């Protein structure tokens, strides 16, 4: 029981680590959005299953309340990321428009900031 929980936690932590490494290393924002989802879905799931096994072994009864975090993360992560990507698309478009406007009439429009 114990070594199974340890292996699952180690695998989950490795996935979260690789996700953050991808967040650091990838080039554009839309590539970077993909990387942390590894940690938030499978990494969280594996660590939660490992925690369930561990506490079930300690207390000698099934401990299932970690499912709560799993359900919550599964529901909320896509909402956050979809909002964020839509915001990024919107901001890219606004920046592009401001740039083309500035090209049409130089000196008039300042480039919209970060």
């Amino acid at each position, binding site marked *: 029981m114990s070594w199974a929980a340890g292996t699952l936690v180690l695998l*989950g*932590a490795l996935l979260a680590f690789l996700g953050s490494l991808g967040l650091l290393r990838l080039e554009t924002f839309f590539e970077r959005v993909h990387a942390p989802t590894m940690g938030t879905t499978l990494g969280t799931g594996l660590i939660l299953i490992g*925690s369930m096994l561990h506490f079930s072994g300690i207390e000698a009864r099934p401990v299932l309340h970690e499912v*709560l*975090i799993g359900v919550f993360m599964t529901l909320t992560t896509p909402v956050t990321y979809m909002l*964020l990507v839509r*915001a990024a698309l919107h901001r890219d478009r606004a920046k592009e428009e401001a740039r083309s406007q500035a090209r049409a009439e130089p000196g008039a429009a300042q480039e919209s900031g970060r």
Partner: protein
Amino acid sequence: MNTALLIAQALLGMAMVFAVIRLLRGPRAQDRVLSLDTLYVNAMLLVLTFGMKSGTTLYFEAALAIGMLGFVSSAALAKFLLRGEVIE
């Protein structure tokens, strides 16, 4: 079990460091919001591993609270980037 938890904690800590580097470096605001969300998730996982090490379920509630706060803050920041205000 203990060595596995130690290695997992080291990996999660390095993941948090990477997220902080991206948070400081990120070229635009959406990169910073994304790395803040990643930082929250990694912190939640780290708290879970601490709980497994100590053997009490107290850390579980802390992890749940961190997850909820992370979702609310990231959603509010993304909404702010989208519209310029949080609640219309």
